[in-house]
């Protein structure tokens, strides 16, 4: 079996009205109950894209797919970097108005919403100004570079009455839809720990012709390396998995401790090339998280450890703690224990697993060809038409972003960090 669009809709429909859907992932309901899409120009949702670098370019491709089905229009694009500015004009066939300054863009072009994929430290003022200008916002994760900026975005969103969604795309992934349901119904027993990691072997240099670390161009293009603009892998990678842990446990951490260093890529970058963290959640449950960029053996993973089983969410696999023996083998054991020796049908054609060749494991959900970012943007457009999005969806982004920065703080101070009251919502 394979999850195509139809199967995905069946899955979301099957869970519609369930308590697990209502409490953990109400946004999936939008696929069963989409907003009507008018065909007229006046019904068109007009979107501007701020930041069209590597991620922004991908988001434009996603939005172009929606142009065919959802009556949206990429009305404007914006980037301060000339080559990307030019590339976005080409990518949109010259149909979108192009700007170097997003303020000018939102002033001059009539828009319903913006999609923001600029460097992390730019998210806050862009989001806040856009919300204040009456626009809905889809902002890439993580929310902002500082805790105060994250909270300011949240407050501006509350004040505006508009939609603000943060791009942790696993929130719209079909594997998580199935996994959350199974975890909540107790398939792997009580969850007692989460282990997650993101390991890669890459120098993570996006742009090589910048004149080297520390030059103004390098600070602008390879902004992920500079403390002023990013917390490196903590905000750019870890944030995804911190969101997943919060989501699975239905809670926020109580505290976090951690440590990080630069032990391999000593090229002048300011952010860690490796770190490890421990988050403590209510119920004495821990999330351990580590990240490294000089070894890729372990890849990336989120393991949900329960007393009866394990889920590996990044690889869509589920493992039982005590898998049932083959029927013949069970009979054989019974006979041995009972002192009998009768023939048992235990030989035959090779047994093979339904799932990939991983001993003992099976798929959580069938393989799928759906792009979770695309589904998220489809949800965003639907929510715009409906005028509102589930508050929990925004809160997922907020909590993940807050705890991402608290985790960074823990690694920098070596202290056990809790959440200051002013950031609690």
């Amino acid at each position: 079996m394979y999850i195509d669009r139809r199967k995905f809709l069946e899955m979301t429909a099957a869970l519609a009205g369930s308590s697990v859907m209502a409490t953990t992932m109400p946004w999936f309901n939008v696929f069963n109950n989409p907003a009507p899409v008018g065909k007229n120009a006046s019904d068109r949702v007009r979107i501007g894209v701020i930041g069209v670098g590597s991620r922004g370019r991908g988001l434009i491709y996603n939005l172009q797919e929606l142009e065919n089905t959802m009556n949206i229009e990429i009305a404007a694009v914006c980037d301060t970097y000339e080559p990307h500015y030019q590339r976005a004009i080409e990518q949109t066939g010259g149909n979108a108005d192009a700007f170097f300054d997003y303020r000018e863009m939102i002033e001059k072009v009539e828009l319903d919403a913006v999609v923001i994929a600029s460097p992390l430290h730019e998210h806050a003022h862009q989001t806040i100004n856009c919300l204040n200008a009456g626009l809905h916002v889809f902002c890439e994760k993580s929310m902002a570079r500082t805790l105060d900026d994250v909270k300011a975005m949240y407050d501006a969103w509350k004040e505006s009455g508009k939609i603000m969604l943060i791009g942790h795309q696993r929130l719209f992934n079909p594997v998580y839809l199935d996994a959350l349901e199974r975890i909540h119904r107790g398939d792997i027993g009580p969850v007692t720990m989460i282990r997650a990691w993101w390991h890669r072997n890459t120098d993570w240099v996006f742009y090589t012709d910048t004149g080297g670390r520390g030059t103004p161009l390098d600070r602008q293009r390879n902004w992920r390396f500079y403390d002023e603009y990013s917390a490196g892998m903590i905000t750019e990678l870890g944030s995804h998995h911190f969101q997943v842990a919060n989501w699975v446990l239905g809670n926020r951490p109580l505290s976090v401790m951690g440590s990080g260093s630069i032990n391999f890529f000593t090229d002048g970058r300011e952010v860690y090339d490796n770190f490890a963290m421990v988050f403590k959640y209510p119920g004495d449950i821990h999330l351990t998280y580590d990240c490294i960029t000089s070894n890729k053996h372990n890849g990336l993973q989120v393991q949900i450890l329960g007393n009866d089983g394990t889920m590996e969410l990044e690889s869509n696999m589920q493992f039982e703690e005590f898998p049932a023996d083959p029927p013949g083998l069970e009979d054989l054991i019974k006979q041995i224990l009972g002192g009998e020796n009768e023939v048992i049908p235990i030989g035959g054609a090779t047994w093979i697993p339904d799932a990939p060749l991983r001993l003992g494991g099976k798929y959580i959900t069938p393989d799928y060809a759906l792009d979770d970012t695309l589904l998220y943007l489809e949800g965003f457009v639907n929510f715009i038409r409906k005028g509102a999005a589930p508050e929990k969806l925004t809160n997922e982004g907020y909590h993940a972003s807050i705890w991402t920065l608290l985790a960074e703080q823990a690694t920098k101070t070596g202290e056990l960090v809790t959440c200051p009251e002013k950031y609690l919502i």
Partner: protein
Amino acid sequence: MGTRFNAILPGLDYDEGDRVFLLIKREISRIEGKLSRFRRESDISEMNRAAFHQDCMLDDELYDIMKACLFGNEITSGAFDITLRPLMEYWKNNQNVSVPNDNWDNLRCSLGMQQIELSEAGKSIRYNSANLEVDLGGFGKGYALEKINEILVNLKVKCAFISFGESSVLAKGEHPAGGPWKIGINDYLKPGKSVYRFEINDGSVSTSSNFFLTDHGTLKNHMHVIDPFTGIPVEQCISVSVMAPSPVLAEMLSTAFLVMSDEKIFEVLDQYDDLEVIKINYESGKTRLKLYDKINT
């Protein structure tokens, strides 16, 4: 090995059983790491990359394995062949292509174990065809059982039942209740019923078939076995089970007997005193059993 593994170790207490099992598990991992073509770093993958038109040095273990495979090929008159994987891939990608055609013919002629040169003096191997790719899928489970048996002997474990996906089983010593282990061969059409019974002490039963079974009893990958003599997949839904003292021999023969004529099978049986062989044909929705009893030859 791409399947499940079970071990029953009667008579051992928990700690002792755990210790034995961990040693077995470690050995299986080692073998898998060495022989799996799915692992890029395995010795087999390394050999497949390096051996075309140049001598590729083998360690003693891999040399012995390749020697055993060549022996298996020889005693089965070419039916046991570990080089046919590219043909399997060909049929996977060209299901509706009619043969003969040039691509298929060129590929078929470039494969076969005659393209392998094994040098005893240099402990090295050389492939004479660029298409050659060794796949030990029809050998590995038997070999693992052989090595597990060595562990059990060393640890003085007298009684055990070991199974790889039910198709390769090792029965060690006597059944704890006395007498031989009575290993029934499952009737695919009547799950849970035995179509035949092997009785065995210290030996192995290997079943090869041109289908696999999933948890739900559904048949998968029908026609994944290539007949080396014709170069096309075996279409009949059949399985062969071989009981032999050596798990490796049982494994190689069960694979080969799937594509061998009765006459050729009997020729092999004549060379051994301690083999028992059945072939089951599931065509037309019926279970037809054939017992190869060499007394009748």
